[in-house]
């Protein structure tokens, strides 16, 4: 095999995965995954739990390490660099720098409970990007307006409903001005009546953002996705494995938007 380029030529490709494999012990979670996500595309990954959707998403920002293959984000290999033909894991600082360009929203929100809504939002811009506090605060307040929570600025996460927390978490990710947003089942920990408010924010965001969303929300997929990727294999220990747990792009529903 020719060793891969560390850089991609086409700047319109935001995410490119090539033959990605991932094991948890003997469990082969991701098998030869290939996918390409272009700028401003909204890709929704749908499928049963345990099929590796979330794991794949977490590999994109290198929170999980892959066992083989390559993932490029914003044109660069994520988590690794090429040292004379061999892939070597990047320094922590370089990985952090790449992650700063990738927003992530978690199933369980993962807001920082010791910080208020606005403090959650400005923490990374001020500490990582070294944005002046006043500027970060002004931008943070604009983001809170955008997710409809201007009045919750000084509330702690435990004073907010699940839907409100998730909207703050979206604002927190957006505050880093990422080129790509990853959503890991963003509505599955929410009470049904709160799902709508989060999906509305995501739909609006989908107009202008590159997004990869792992979700069970068919309605959202239909309304906002450019592409829907179905994961069709249920991982069960006794069943013979199919070729790929994430059959991308083997079964793609296109034109659902």
């Amino acid at each position, binding site marked *: 095999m020719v060793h891969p380029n560390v850089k991609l030529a086409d700047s319109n490709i935001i995410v490119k995965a090539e033959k990605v494999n991932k094991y948890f012990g003997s469990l082969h979670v991701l098998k030869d995954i290939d996918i390409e996500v272009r700028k401003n595309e909204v890709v929704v990954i749908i499928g049963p739990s345990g099929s590796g959707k979330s794991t794949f998403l977490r590999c994109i920002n290198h929170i999980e390490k892959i066992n083989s293959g390559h993932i490029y984000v914003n044109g660069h290999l994520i988590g690794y660099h090429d040292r004379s033909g061999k892939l070597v894991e990047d320094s922590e600082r370089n990985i952090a720098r790449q*992650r700063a360009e990738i927003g*992530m929203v*978690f199933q*369980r929100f*993962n807001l920082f409970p010791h910080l208020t809504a606005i403090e959650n939002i400005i923490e990374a811009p001020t500490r990582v990007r070294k944005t002046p506090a006043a500027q970060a605060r002004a931008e943070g307040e604009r983001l809170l307006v955008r997710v409809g929570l201007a009045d919750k600025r000084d509330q702690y996460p435990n004073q907010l409903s699940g839907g409100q927390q998730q909207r703050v978490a979206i604002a927190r990710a957006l505050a880093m001005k990422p080129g790509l947003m990853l959503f890991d089942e963003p509505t599955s920990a929410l009470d049904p009546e709160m799902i709508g408010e989060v999906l509305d924010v995501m739909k609006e965001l989908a107009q202008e953002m590159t997004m990869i969303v792992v979700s069970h929300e068919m309605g959202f997929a239909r309304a906002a996705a450019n592409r829907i990727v179905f994961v069709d294999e249920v991982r069960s220990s006794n069943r013979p494995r199919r070729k790929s747990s994430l059959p991308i792009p083997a079964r793609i529903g296109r034109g659902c938007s």
Partner: protein
Amino acid sequence: MYHFDWAIFLKYIWPPSAFQDPLIRNGLIVTVIVSVVAQALGVILGLFAALGKMSKLAIFRWLSEIYIWYFRGTPLIVQMSLLFFGFGVTHIYDFPTIFLGVVAISGAIQAGTLALGIDEGAYMAEIVRAGIESIDPGQMEAAKSLGMTFGLAMQRIVLPQAAKVIIPPLGNEFNNMMKTTSLMVVISAGELFYGFEQVNARIFKPFELFIAASLYYLLLTTIWSLIQARIEAGLGERKGTTKGPGMMQRLFTGAGGKGVR
């Protein structure tokens, strides 16, 4: 029948008269300052040992394990004697007196404080590690996904939350520390118990004097319990969560007390 010497007893339990004896006055000051410094050293060493134990690099894990293993597995009084007498006689380090302005810090006090702090670090390591591990791993993931390095995420996100879990046992450790400083008597550092021992050597009233000594320690630990209860109430209030054991419970059930190591 033993004749209890009330005059001596009252003289030595009543601070204004007891403090006329510089051995007692300075002893109390040394006990308090050494406790604070040794505990602070213990917290810092404990933090590093805890992070070392959780490190990806085997060498850091081993160093931490060996440190904790040795200092939890050997008596403090032996560690202290080894550090002061052993290092002195071999000239590894002589512990010369340090002068800070008008204050002279004897070698024994330095060695004692160091031994107390290093020993304490081995216990704090477990407390800090438990505190860090009590925090949802999703917090570290969220911080990393925002571009924070491990160190920044620890400092800004994980440790401030872990502090809430660490502070109650830390308070108990400090209570213990104030009592444990009395072991410094073996290296003749001039702390409170050493003061009473010296007075006893002069007038031989061990019953009266050591009751008085015990009351001074009781005073220190009781004052600390009050402060600790207030700190923990503050912690609980701010986040509207759990409350620690009450003052009375703390004093009489021996919550967290461990005795001399």
